[in-house]
């Protein structure tokens, strides 16, 4: 019997692995994120997010979340508590609303994941009052969520859908470079904010890339082991 490459199950372990991978990516790139922020903001985006995700890892290590929703909810609550900068309430509410959207399910399907990211985007838009083109994390997240929803409605394979999401996020973050900021401290710079990548859009790409890479890693592990497939 052949052992075809399996899709990752979007269960509690998967969501924990995603957040763990995102925390590691933020830690690795914290200096870069803060440098991006220093160009147009107050230079603490990487430090703040790294402090927040380090706190998230302590919480996830000492609790045993039973559902994907609990993983995201704990992540959001801890980011709100620990980050200290604007990205704390923004990412925090995004993770919490995404968690709420997942309900009590122990395994999530692709449309469910897309709905959760819809809820995350709506929460960020509501709290930050940012519109498309304001040079914020919305400029990476909105096209990513749209791409994921399109892939989900076409019943695309999980990894293809998540790759389309990451590609759209990257393109969206690249598109912030020529934008003029109209939210946050960068907006005080006016035209001088042009020519710099938005740090919030950059960290959004890292977090979404971690999601895609988690699915790729789990899928390839299962495929290579040839076990655990129903």
């Amino acid at each position: 019997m052949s052992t075809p490459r399996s899709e990752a199950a979007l269960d509690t372990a998967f969501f924990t692995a995603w957040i763990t991978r995102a925390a590691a990516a933020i830690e690795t790139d914290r200096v870069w994120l803060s440098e991006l922020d220093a160009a147009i903001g107050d230079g603490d985006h990487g430090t703040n997010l790294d402090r927040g995700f380090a706190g998230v890892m302590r919480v996830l290590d000492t609790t045993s979340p039973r559902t994907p929703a609990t993983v995201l909810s704990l992540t959001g609550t801890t980011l709100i508590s620990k980050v200290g900068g604007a990205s704390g309430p923004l990412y925090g509410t995004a993770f919490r609303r995404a968690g709420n959207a997942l309900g009590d399910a122990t395994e999530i399907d692709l449309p469910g994941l897309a709905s959760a990211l819809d809820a995350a985007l709506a929460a960020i838009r509501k709290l930050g009052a940012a519109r498309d083109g304001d040079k914020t994390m919305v400029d990476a997240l909105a096209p990513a969520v749209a791409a994921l929803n399109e892939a989900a409605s076409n019943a695309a394979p999980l990894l293809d859908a998540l790759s389309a999401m990451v590609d759209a996020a990257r393109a969206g973050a690249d598109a912030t470079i020529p934008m003029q900021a109209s939210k946050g401290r960068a907006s005080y710079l006016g035209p001088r904010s042009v020519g710099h990548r938005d740090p919030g859009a950059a960290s959004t790409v890292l977090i979404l890339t971690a999601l895609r890479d988690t699915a790729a890693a789990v899928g390839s592990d299962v495929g290579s082991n040839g076990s655990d497939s129903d």
Partner: protein
Amino acid sequence: MVGLVLVSHSARLAEGAAELASQLGGEAPVEPAGGLPEGGLGTSIELIERAVRAADRGAGVVILADLGSAVLTVKLLLDDAADLPGPIVLADAPLVEGAVSAAVAAASGADFAAVRAAAEEARAFHKI
């Protein structure tokens, strides 16, 4: 009496604004919520929540904030404020001028809506 909470990225800025507002506003409860619990610049939802409870005298709490994450953190707290004493509002007002104006109004016995209005009227203060 209506209570006030002053939220800033800086503990010293929040404390200084509270000192000034208390000096001019007499008896009104004015609680600072600045910086991070472990020190350093930033905003802490826990410190803000604690300050709201400390400022509450049963007639409502008006919150003033400086910038960016201070505003976002207060908005988030109010979105989820199931068990906070009410009514609570974030005034759309400058921190220092709004705090003084609101503290004077609160000390005079003004109600929740009037204290909020006093804070927000400070946006139109001209200095020269």
